[in-house]
Every structure is written in structure tokens, then in C-alpha cells.
């Protein structure tokens, strides 16, 4: 199953994330990563998700809204509940775009290295 493969990859990715999380306190992305991991493996409503976090329902709803805007999840109304589903295509697309963006930084650090090397000549 594709979702399973993607999830396993994400688990692998997350192993190195402790350091990233520290760097990233300002952006509180660990919650969003956790939300995505949950909705890939099981069915959750917004209130079902909120029960897992020490934050308000509104705060969790805000995280879900950010993820929805980023095309990482979709929301589906069922009665009074809102079911949150992963948008795996969106996740793959984001990964592709980040790969392109990475090339910009590869070139930037090469240029910085060139500038620093000038003084040594």
C-alpha cells in the first residue's frame, strides 16, 4: 500500500529530526508532523486529533488549516465531524519542490566558499 510505504519513509526521516526540532521551536512543526503521521495511519476527526495534544481544539484546528493550505491534508464533513485525510500527492509535490529549492542553497554555499577562498590565495 502506497500510504504504508510513504509512512515508513516518514518514520525514517523523523529519526534525524530531534536536532531539527530544537532548531525549529519557533515554528512548532512537530505537531503538524505528528498530525500527518496520525491521519496517514488512522482515521481522525479534528476533535479526535485534538484529544491527543495538550493544546486547545482551536489551536489544533489552526494547525490543520495550515496543513490544508499547504495541500498536505484535506478535510471532509461527516455529520458534525470533520474527518482529516492525508493528501499524499500534495506531500510528494512538496518534496519535489523542496528538492529544487535545495539546489539554490547548494549553489549559494559554493559561491560563499569561493568568496572565502579568495583571501587564502
Amino acid at each position, binding site marked *: 500500500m502506497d500510504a504504508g510505504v510513504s509512512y515508513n519513509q516518514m518514520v525514517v526521516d523523523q529519526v534525524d529530526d530531534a536536532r531539527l526540532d530544537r532548531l525549529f521551536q*519557533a515554528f512548532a*512543526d512537530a505537531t503538524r508532523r505528528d498530525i500527518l503521521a496520525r491521519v496517514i495511519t488512522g482515521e481522525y476527526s479534528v476533535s479526535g486529533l485534538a484529544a491527543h495534544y495538550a493544546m486547545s481544539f482551536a489551536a489544533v484546528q489552526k494547525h490543520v488549516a495550515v496543513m490544508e493550505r499547504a495541500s498536505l491534508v484535506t478535510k471532509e464533513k461527516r455529520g458534525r465531524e470533520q474527518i482529516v485525510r492525508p493528501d499524499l500527492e500534495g506531500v510528494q509535490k512538496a518534496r519535489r519542490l523542496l528538492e529544487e529549492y535545495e539546489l539554490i*542553497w547548494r549553489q549559494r554555499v*559554493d559561491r*560563499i566558499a569561493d568568496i572565502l*577562498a579568495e583571501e*587564502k590565495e
Partner: protein
Amino acid sequence: MTFISSHQDPEALSLTFVAEFDASVERVWQVWEDPRQLERWWGPPTYPATFQRHEFVPGGSANYYMTSPEGEKFHGWWKITAIDAPRRLEYDDGFADENGVPDDKMGATHSVMTLETVEGRTRMTTVTVFESAEQLQQMLEMGMEEGVREGMGQIDALLAEPARA
């Protein structure tokens, strides 16, 4: 070797990029602090950057433009949100109109840059977070992507040359 590692996090729409340089932390800090050095590396050689303003203090702003080979100018801005010289810089950046006014439609990118000494070298870690996949896509489409493709062409050309002694 300059490049150390990179980590793409699609869930957080972030990229972490780690590089090391044979220079002191203070020297690497200068390539960010000095606008004349900054503009030599921020944009690709075919889209050179010109920083018209570079207030390198907390709350300070920077305005710059990148010039295409055809002479077209793409304006951008920075807002410095935190500085702890010479170790840590946090800034937001985005695109602007021709008067340097931020383009709100495009949203801002949030970045944290840290420098540390690792075995006598300076390790630079940059973490960039985008607000949406659309924003990232737009940024890549607007000139930068072209710059990257040209940059890749340059690398290919270099690799094709016989190695110099």
C-alpha cells in the same frame, strides 16, 4: 568539502541545509553582514543581486533586486527578526513590487541561520520554512528556477572541462 547534508521536510514545508567552510565563524558571518559580499552569493551569477538597503540589526529590513540577463529587475525584501552575532540570524524574506513594497500574495519565507565551530571549521545551518506549497512553487517559477537551471548548466560545463592541475 563544503556540502554536509540537507533535509527536506514536506510536512513542515522546510529545508535544512548544512555546509562547512574553512574559515572562522566571524569570517562566515561577514558574508551575511556585508551587503557587498552578500550580493556576490545570494543570487545566481546570471541574476546578480543588488542590496539597496541592508539594516543588519533586529527589526531591520533589507531591500534588494536581482537583474535578469535581459535587464529585468526582480525585487525582494528581508526583515531581520533576531540577531545574535556572530552565531545566529533569523529573518523573513519574500518578493516585492518595483518600489520594494512586499507582495503579500506571495507570503514570506522564514529562515534561521546558525554558525558553529566544528573541528576547526565553521558549520553553517540554514533552515527555511515556506508558508505553502504554492508559495514555494511560485518562488521557483519566478526567475529563481531559471537561475538554478543556468547554475546547473554551469556545473555541467565545469564537469565537462578537463581537470586543471
